[in-house]
């Protein structure tokens, strides 16, 4: 865990771009949370959205809290996870472009130095 999420915007390369892995780690965490919520049966508590209690064995506030928690985790998986994955992909492409450009600049500089 100490390694996980330990590099908010630390770059693993010289490109100065944030880490794509970091975004994928967050996406992974949201997916794990969703699986836990799903297995725990929190989906049925979303009936709070129409004003019906999720379980008659529970008080209103607790049932509503579980329902709202499920909705937030679900929205995280359906909306945020794909955005994080896409962002990670864009970062990778961006980094590749920068790396290619960097290599080209370097070889051009080396060629100039040799000529000089």
């Amino acid at each position: 865990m100490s390694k996980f999420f330990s590099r908010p915007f630390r770059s693993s390369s010289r490109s100065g771009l944030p880490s794509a892995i970091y975004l994928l780690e967050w996406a992974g965490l949201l997916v794990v949370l969703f699986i836990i919520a799903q297995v725990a049966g929190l989906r049925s508590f979303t009936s709070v959205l129409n004003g019906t209690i999720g379980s008659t064995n529970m008080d209103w506030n607790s049932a509503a809290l579980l329902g709202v928690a499920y909705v937030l985790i679900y929205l995280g998986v359906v909306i945020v996870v794909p955005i994080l994955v896409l962002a990670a992909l864009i970062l990778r492409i961006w980094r590749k472009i920068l790396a290619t450009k960097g290599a080209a600049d370097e070889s051009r500089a080396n060629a100039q130095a040799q000529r000089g």
Partner: protein
Amino acid sequence: MLRIKRILAALLVLTIATAIWVPCLHLVFARPVSNFRQAEGLSPKARQLAARHLQLWVDPDQRQKELERMRASNAEWDFMGRTFLVWSLANMGLRDPGSKPVYLRTMDQIIDETLRLEKENGMYFFLMSYAQPGRYVMKPERSLFLDGEIAVMLASRRMLEEKEEYKKLLTERVDLMTEGFHRSPHLLLESYPDECWMFDHCLALDALKMADYLDGTDHSKLIHDWIAMAKLKLVDRESGLLLSSFTTDDVPLGGPEGSSLWMVAHSLQILDPEFAHDQYQRARRQLGEITLGFGYAHEWPKTWVGPANIDSGPVVPVFNISAGSSGMALIGASAFDDEPFLKSLNATLDFAAFPSRKSGRLKYCASNQVGDAALLYAATLGPLWQKIEGAKR
């Protein structure tokens, strides 16, 4: 400096990713309309929703649990869950004659139990608690909400297959309502003490129309007079939409609310098709929305300020999405063959109502039994109204 650069780069890629994903999100949930409703036969979704409801009526424990959850919020939902299911089963029987015996058995079970509960506990059993301390203006005290919907239940059953025992029961309800209308100075009957509802009046008039079809009676003058009165006195001037509730002296109580209007427009289809079409088009323009491929509905038009209530359900801020109005909008879109709206509403349903499928049975977790029964009605409506319209022609 480098850290700020990285944060800005992260924000930029997240913004680009959001701009790509959000407009595409509806594609994950969008399905052809035929998945929800078909011109003939039953759609896959109708079959799955129906399977779950039929299961509830052979499993008393599960049914009791479901009803208790709803009654903890609103006793009306227990009653309306029954009526929407009976109307759906009548339409399903006409669409799928092979399964008619199962549907008839369930319809009879629901009707008999509902009538028994009403007889044993009185009409307040199916009304919200504020009905009891109030005083009904009209005597003897009756609720048009119960009389109208029970009459439509009985008529729907008889339209699928005649049952002699229900003929007398339907005639009794129809006579009670007709006498009430004739005694009322403004042609308005109460559902709650000095509280009349457009939804209940339109369904009561549907029951009269169905009784005319079944028993050869003629309530056309009453229906005509009532609609003429409603056009004159019960329409909100700014939106042109019908008001949802009013007193027995035709003083408005609630404005045009989406959770009533979509069903009202559908119910008007057999009473005054042109007016029905006009009301649907107005509701579609002023209450219905499609944003990024997702359909939803407001509870109130922009010209009316009203609070969220038990009918509207919680209202999502910013977009003003009403769960109640959006659910009932499926009935309107289905009844008026508004395919783009129906398709987008369905995408929202599968995105935000949390479908749960088990052994071929479908329920929406964000809904409840009455909500799912209304969805089933939206997925199956048509044949009952077509029968009446066919007879008229």
